[in-house]
């Protein structure tokens, strides 16, 4: 049975890639250790030599893209249920649109945060770690962190709301009284996206990029 499972093309590809990646890391690490070149593995050098702009823009990109993935996934799940259930019980379609709106809100959080974060990116004139200055580094990392925060929060919030909304639609199709109670579950699910936005705003509140 294991062989049958392995015969799946996806599984072979993913195991192959993972194996190659980790074995490269392992071999390189072992060589560095044996030849006493561990001092070359300098995380501080990596963090100070890479440009804060890269971090900032990765944060902005991740903020919007991960939020959109969450929203899209949620809408896909809920939408298919509503449409499917609406075939036999057409009355559900108007009320259940509120689930779609909860999912969409997650994408809106994402784009608002992306715009807020991208407004903080300013030009600075340093080229070496000393001339760039600690403030610019802090700005770059904060923007990256904020983007990551809001992105992942919205991703899982969107999926959560989507699955709950799908359940709500189908329950509503069976029995119209159930919908209102299930909506409360959805509201709790939606709150977690909001938490992500709040934390991201806190992270970028002290950001001041520039000279």
């Amino acid at each position: 049975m294991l062989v049958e499972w392995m015969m799946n093309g996806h599984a072979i590809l993913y195991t192959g890639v993972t194996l190659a990646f980790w074995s490269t890391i392992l071999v390189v690490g072992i060589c560095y250790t044996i030849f006493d070149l561990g001092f070359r593995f300098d995380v501080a050098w990596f963090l100070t030599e890479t440009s804060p702009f890269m971090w900032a823009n990765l944060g902005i990109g991740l903020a919007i893209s991960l939020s959109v993935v969450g929203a899209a996934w949620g809408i896909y799940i809920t939408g298919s249920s509503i449409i499917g259930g609406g075939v036999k019980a057409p009355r559900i379609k108007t009320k259940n649109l509120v689930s779609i709106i909860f999912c969409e809100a997650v994408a809106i959080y994402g784009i608002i945060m992306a715009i807020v974060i991208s407004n903080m990116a300013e030009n600075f004139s340093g080229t070496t770690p000393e001339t760039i200055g600690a403030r610019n580094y802090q700005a770059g990392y904060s923007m990256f962190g904020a983007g990551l925060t809001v992105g992942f929060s919205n991703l899982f919030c969107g999926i959560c709301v989507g699955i709950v909304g799908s359940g709500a639609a189908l329950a509503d199709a069976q029995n119209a009284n159930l919908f209102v109670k299930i909506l409360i579950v959805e509201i709790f699910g939606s709150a977690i996206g909001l938490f992500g936005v709040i934390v991201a705003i806190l992270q970028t509140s002290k950001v001041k990029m520039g000279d």
Partner: protein
Amino acid sequence: MATRKMRLFSSISASFAVLFTLLNTGRCDEQVPLMLWTSEGTSLPSQSPPAAGHIVGRDQLDAYLHTALGSGPRNVLLFLQDKMSIEDFTIYGGAFGNKQDSAFRNLEGALLSSPSPLVLPAVSWPGSNAVIGALQDQLETSPLYMDAETLGQLRLNSSSPALLVFRLPYGTGSDLMSAKEILSGNDEVIGQVLSIMKTQSVPYLAIYTALQPSQEAAAALSLEVGAGGGRSLLQARASHKEREQERERKRKVKEKAGVYGPVEFKKMELYQSKERENTCILLWATGLSVSILRGGRWDDHDLTPSTFGEGVTPKLHGSMCDQTKARLVLNYEDVLGHRNFKLIFAMSQRHYSVSARRWFTMDQVELEYDGTKATFNGSRSIYAPAEYSYRCDAVSSFRWPSLFPRSAKDPANQWRVSFEDFQIQGFNVSGQDFSYASDCAGFFTPGIWMGLMSSLLMVLVLTYGLHMIMQLRTMDRFDDPKGPAISVPLTE
């Protein structure tokens, strides 16, 4: 069987023939342009200019000159430049819509106003050198080498033949004048000569050509093409010159790098109850140079021949080394006008707790002269584990600097130091060789890391998306291959 063998043989011989002709043409692909025009009022029988890309051979050139001189004026002005290529006209002739920058205004004016100009963009060289000889034969007179001043004193006659040769320079490699300035100067001379001829109102035939193709233009072009070409020639010029200078410098440095040992500073040490001389500091480089800013210019002095080489022993008075500090003092005489000049490398080593090992840093590079001390800080980028030596391809204070003046008012701001292929070790020297060299250049640059990170992220996203798309299935619950096919009638 026989036909196959014959076919094989003929194909091989054909390929050889093609290769041979290619190699042959490869040898004489040097060309020199030639321009010919007459004064206003005199016209020659019209000659068809050569087709584009056609290289005019020796015989054809003779034919052109024969026709021109046969019925044309007997006074010939030959402007002979040292080197010329058609690329010079492209680069400096304002061919890219910038006519005001053209260096050939007088030449253009003469060609446009002449009733019968002839431009041969490519005359094969070295056959074109025979142009003086050909003119001599046809005019039956010997050439007179002149310049603009002596022309004014000469009285020309339209009936008696005269061959006046004006040599024009094309110096390369001198930083004082760029090629453009030289060509503009030559154009000025042409303009002066033509105006003098006009005042004398003697009909003439003028020829503008060169003795050699200008290698610089050809080399520049091939370099640009080689370096992923297609760039604008005008754009490439300035940076090419700088790169050429860099390459010259590096070539000189490489020539100097014969095999020689490092500078060693030895110290008397008590070892096993015996006094022994142990090497304590090692230094090696292929180039050590200092420059001072004087009157807006940088005066360089190369310290390498007085420091390294066979039989060269630099004076190391004042150097010291112990467990935590090492100081190498190189004493020189008469550097840039200073009698006693010292180049000092100050290093120190200590234990750093975060990495749990000992590191050494180059704290200062000092220049001491006439009681003044110029200090450069080097601890930011010149460091290595204490057991190893530090090696870097270029340590300088101005180009991707690793040495910085200690403060904004330090005399070091007037100095530039530059070390090439620099290796130094101040601690844990065993024997007379360097330990493992910790290079200043890592395997990946910051740019490579940034690219890798972003690419990896996007590959991850792509993988995830692909995975999701590939697991979409069409619904096949109600498929019935044996049932009737669905029909959608057009009519209601």
